[in-house]
């Protein structure tokens, strides 16, 4: 049995934040879940996927976050408790659905999890999704720990059903990826099938209906505001004359700082866990008699703005600060030492900071950047594109996945990236606005996610671009989740169909389509050259499964290669390809047989044919 299905209330488990969240949903009687994978949220859905194979839970990997939210919205409006999980930027994709779903509302509970990523450990931006609460009018809950997140999921479902609208549960990376002891509660029996009661004058959002629904949303907002003011997730601790208002992980840093500084009797804390609507009346009560207040929040001054406006309403004039050059930054994540130092300096507490060791005298150390795996087919493809495009002035928009790493030397291929699917759309723009050839890269999962509309655009508007689809039969970057192009039967998973990328591309009407095996370098170069010579939209589909996945499925068959004494030290293998299985011993190039997957790409590019399979 899956460990998150353990029906032993009171039992303690050491759980990752994301596991605690998944468990919270199971305890709340979750019946339906959908997602598009994205770090730091991915383990929540990975657990749901496993759980759905052994319980009545319906779970799906949807093609993108917008589709995932639509799927979940329908389930919730059929009365089934549903959850939709995504990373922060995923909410941008889902935003169109979200904004009007806020008007329509739900019948069964719908919790939308947004996993924000301050510091951008694995994201392209660090946007603060609390503003989605303001933008949509929907409630937001924010936990400070995994244990609290588990409880909060349950509460979020109740809140959603009470208000008949979706609730946003906002986490940050340090909630999702922290582990702590969590106590299991009771599992409520899930309802997995409901019914949809037709009511078009409340469900079909033509202007006349939406005008009515917006009135309802604002009324709901008033109720949500009352609930926020009385919520047990918004609480005051201590009774000093200085105030600190904080949320999420910042609350932990504040608590530790107040104890470390030994100022428990001087500080009172307002922890905000129900952060949209902000609890205006509670904030005013808190500020009463507060000489000075500090707002501690990662990201934007979201709470600070609300606190200042609450103070203004009551005519409070004592200082309230948060973001500022000497205070907190809008950038990156906070840490306990930094929060402790700012609290000490803002309120004037004595404080001797920890002295980190002196780093002077330590030389620049060789970096250890992430690298495409040994034998990764993307490396082969990038090498082939580099060769095929030699002498042709070109621009190479890239996209989101492991293959983004191709922009690093030595392959150095990848010029522009803003979001999922952007390689195709931006490719269209570059092809018209410059005189250069455009070569866009996109992965298979990203192609299904949001590459297809761009490709249709390219065909319709007759752009001159070559799109290279790196089809490795999985969503590798986030942990090998399936996507519509994956052969699920091969993975022994029943009940799925398969969408062929080739048929989609051809169906769109792309004039030139080539299928290649990227490990065959000569043929790949020729195919890319041909595609580049084609005027109009051309697509090259490079098919080779992800080696890391093959390795974990024990499907790797290749024998390792080694460098024979024919080697004349040209080092093309290292300088142009850079497979991490290579190393230099003395001045000789060697291959680490334990890392080599036997893809044979280096052997094809060695001018001396010095790289040969290891003899048994």
């Amino acid at each position, binding site marked *: 049995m899956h460990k998150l299905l353990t029906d032993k209330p009171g039992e303690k488990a*050491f759980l990752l934040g994301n596991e605690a969240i998944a468990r919270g949903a199971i305890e709340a009687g979750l019946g339906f879940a959908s997602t598009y994978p994205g770090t730091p949220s991915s383990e929540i859905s990975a657990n749901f996927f496993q759980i759905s194979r052994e319980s009545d839970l319906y779970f799906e990997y949807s093609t993108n976050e917008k589709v995932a939210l639509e799927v979940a919205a329908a389930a919730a409006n059929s009365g089934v408790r549903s959850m939709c999980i995504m990373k922060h930027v995923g909410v941008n994709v889902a935003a169109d659905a979200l904004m009007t779903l806020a008007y329509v509302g739900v019948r069964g509970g719908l919790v939308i999890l947004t996993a924000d990523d301050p510091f951008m450990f*694995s994201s392209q931006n660090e946007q603060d999704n609390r503003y989605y609460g303001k933008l949509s009018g929907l409630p937001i809950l924010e936990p*400070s720990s995994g244990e609290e997140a588990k409880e909060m999921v349950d509460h979020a479902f109740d809140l959603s059903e009470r208000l008949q609208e979706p609730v946003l549960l906002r986490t940050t990376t*340090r909630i999702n990826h922290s*582990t702590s002891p969590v106590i299991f509660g009771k599992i409520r029996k899930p309802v997995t099938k409901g019914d949809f009661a037709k009511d078009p004058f409340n469900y079909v959002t033509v202007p006349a209906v939406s005008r009515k629904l917006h009135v309802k949303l604002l009324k709901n907002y008033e109720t949500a505001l009352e609930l926020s003011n009385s919520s047990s997730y918004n609480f005051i601790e201590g009774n000093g004359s200085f105030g600190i208002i904080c949320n999420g992980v910042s609350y932990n840093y504040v608590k530790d700082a107040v104890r470390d500084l030994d100022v428990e009797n001087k500080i009172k804390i307002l922890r905000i866990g129900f952060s949209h609507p902000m609890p205006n009346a509670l904030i005013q009560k808190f500020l009463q008699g507060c000489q000075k207040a500090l707002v501690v929040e990662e990201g934007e001054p979201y709470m600070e703005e609300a606190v200042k406006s609450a103070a203004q309403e009551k005519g409070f004039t004592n200082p309230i600060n948060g973001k500022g050059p000497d205070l907190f930054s809008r950038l990156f994540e906070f840490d306990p030492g930094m929060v402790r130092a700012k609290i000490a300096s803002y309120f004037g507490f004595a404080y001797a900071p920890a002295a980190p060791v002196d780093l002077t005298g330590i030389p620049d150390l060789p970096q250890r950047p992430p*690298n495409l795996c040994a034998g990764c087919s993307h490396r082969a493809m990038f090498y082939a594109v580099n060769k095929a495009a030699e002498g042709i002035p070109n621009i190479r928009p890239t996209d989101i996945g492991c293959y983004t*790493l191709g922009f690093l030397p030595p392959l150095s291929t990848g010029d522009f990236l803003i979001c999922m699917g952007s390689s195709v759309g931006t490719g269209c723009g570059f092809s018209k606005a410059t005189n250069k050839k455009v070569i866009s890269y996109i992965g298979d999962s990203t192609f299904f996610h949001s590459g297809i509309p761009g490709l249709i655009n390219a065909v319709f508007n007759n752009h001159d671009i070559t799109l290279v689809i790196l089809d490795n039969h999985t969503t590798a970057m986030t942990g090998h989740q399936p996507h519509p192009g994956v052969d699920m039967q091969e993975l022994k998973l029943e009940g799925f169909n398969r969408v062929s990328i080739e048929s989609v591309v051809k169906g769109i009407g792309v004039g030139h389509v080539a299928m290649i095996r990227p490990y065959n370098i000569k043929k790949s170069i020729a195919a890319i050259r041909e595609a580049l010579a084609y005027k109009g939209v051309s697509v090259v589909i490079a098919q080779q499964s992800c080696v890391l996945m093959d390795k974990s499925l024990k499907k790797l068959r290749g024998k390792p290669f080694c460098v024979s004494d024919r080697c004349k030290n040209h080092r093309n293998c290292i300088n142009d390809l*850079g497979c991490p299985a290579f*190393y230099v011993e003395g001045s000789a190039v060697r291959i680490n047989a334990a890392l080599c997957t036997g893809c044979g790409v280096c052997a094809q590019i060695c001018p001396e044919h010095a790289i040969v399979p290891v003899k048994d």
Partner: protein
Amino acid sequence: MNIKRLIIVAVGGQGNLLASKVLGEAACRQEIPVRMSEIHGMAQRGGVVESAMIFGDAQSTIISDGEADIMVGFEPLETLRAIKKCNSKSTVITSTSPLPPFTAAIGKGVYPDMESIKSMIRQRVGRLITLDANVLAKEAGSELSVNIVLLGALIAVDVLPVTADSVQEAIRETTKKSFAEINLKAFDLGRAAVKA
């Protein structure tokens, strides 16, 4: 309870996350409050994996620069790189088996020599303990046990409130049966290396 802060640094694939999980489970068995956080962005693609573990009544799950009481490095260069987490009193345990990053492996960067890595660390912290975890792991029966060897060394220095008994139980419970014996041996070898 006295708060103790531990940083573990490793290279993707060295089993750092399993080691911290075992240690966390062991602490839970003893009812020691424990929290940890991990950053493993692209661990499987050769990057650095760092976990922070905090024992005692703290709520934070991360550790600021200069605030680690103890650090365990699975790879000497990464131990040195992460040294800013330590202060002049910290205890540092590092394996001395290098895993050169790709740039250094192909001669485009210089991997510092082991003696200078050791002395750069030793000069800056309270106590440095070195052991060749790869050799000990092989002796235990599997190169994959490097993580448990280092866990043994960590327990032997007695900085954390976690006992050897509870770690051994956690090893039995958390790691695969076929592997538990090797891991228990690895754990003992790691402990003995420090005590010697």
